């Protein structure tokens, strides 16, 4: 039960964090450099969330760590490609 509550709390933090970054990226629609920094922030936030979440659950392995880095990088590159040109 406690684990499930933790899980929900972690997901709530993730969703709130993502929505905050998305709102800020939209808010700074015409400030390209700020948007790119925010995209980096979103990516870093996601990597950290994944790593901390799995560490707390005691399921953090080298492959899981690598997976979050790769997905975080993918998110950043998708946004960066769209914003940088």
């Amino acid at each position, binding site marked *: 039960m406690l684990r499930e509550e933790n899980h929900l709390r972690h*997901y709530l933090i*993730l*969703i709130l964090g*993502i*929505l905050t970054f*998305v709102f800020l*990226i*939209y808010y700074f*629609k*015409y400030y*390209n450099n700020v*948007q790119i920094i925010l995209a980096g922030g*979103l990516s870093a936030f*996601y990597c950290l*969330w*994944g790593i901390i*979440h*799995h560490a707390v659950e005691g*399921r953090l*392995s080298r*492959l*899981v760590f*690598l*997976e*979050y880095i*790769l*997905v975080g*990088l*993918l*998110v950043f*590159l*998708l*946004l*960066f*490609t*769209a*914003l*940088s*040109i």
Partner: protein
Amino acid sequence: MYNSLPIEKYMFIHNFLPHPYHRSRARLLSHKALLVYNVFLILFFAFTHYVPKIYPGILGYASDIKISELLNLTNKKRAASGLSELNINNELSKAAYKKAQDMFAKDYWAHVSPDGKEPWDFILAEKYDYSYAGENLAKNFNTSKEVVEAWFSSPSHKDNLLSKNYDEIGFAVVNGTLDGYKTTLVVQMFGRPRTPSYLAKVNEESINEKILESVKEESVVENSAELPKSLETETNGNLFTLSYISLPSVIDVSTAQKVVGLTFGGFITGLFALDVWYSKRKAIPKFTGHTLAHLSILAITVIGIWLALSPGKIL
């Protein structure tokens, strides 16, 4: 005789679906595949960033911006705020045009040129003696409405649009190659003449003809590599402004951005969605990161690209 066809079919489907026996994700979502996607995006960025420097003009931004629309939209915004409409002024338009030409010629995107020339220098060079003046810049936009909305959403540009200190306005919409990309620059210049008599429309027709001729001559000399198809005149009472007709580029960067961001991001998001659905259906336990978390952030990223992708830049 051994028939390998069903096995091959079974193996192929696991490029897209998780494997129940290996307890792994689809092959297209493996670590290697994710690495390949990242490398692809880096290469795409390198292509769009360096190709214009090697082959200028291949990439660009398609646009359909009209000065008459820019003027109407600007005045509508002012009218909505209870302010007087701005009258278009030839000298300000010519100063705006020369500023745009200067940006293309010296390849910069700023209010102040690399050699220190400020917006006021362009205005004063046209013998426009002002008590107040201002400048808004825009590039890479598709429509006139997008340009005015972008300016209106930025506090400093909005201040210019809704300033009580201006009576007159000038526009230039000029196509050219900036930083290797074919693009459209929009220059908006505001002013209040120091002496009201300056507004007197004396010998207007001859002044207009002179401006048109001088701009035609300059465009041939200074911008010979990027010759316009024709010069367009737009009338507003007896005054006019000048703009180039659009020259289409080979690849529209805005479209390329959207196609790559949305299709590529959408494809990977779709694979993660399939993973969540199939794993639940077949009760496949996997010792990986949380697929639902990956799915959430990628889906929001794809939506974010759609919403946050600014149609252009303002300064």
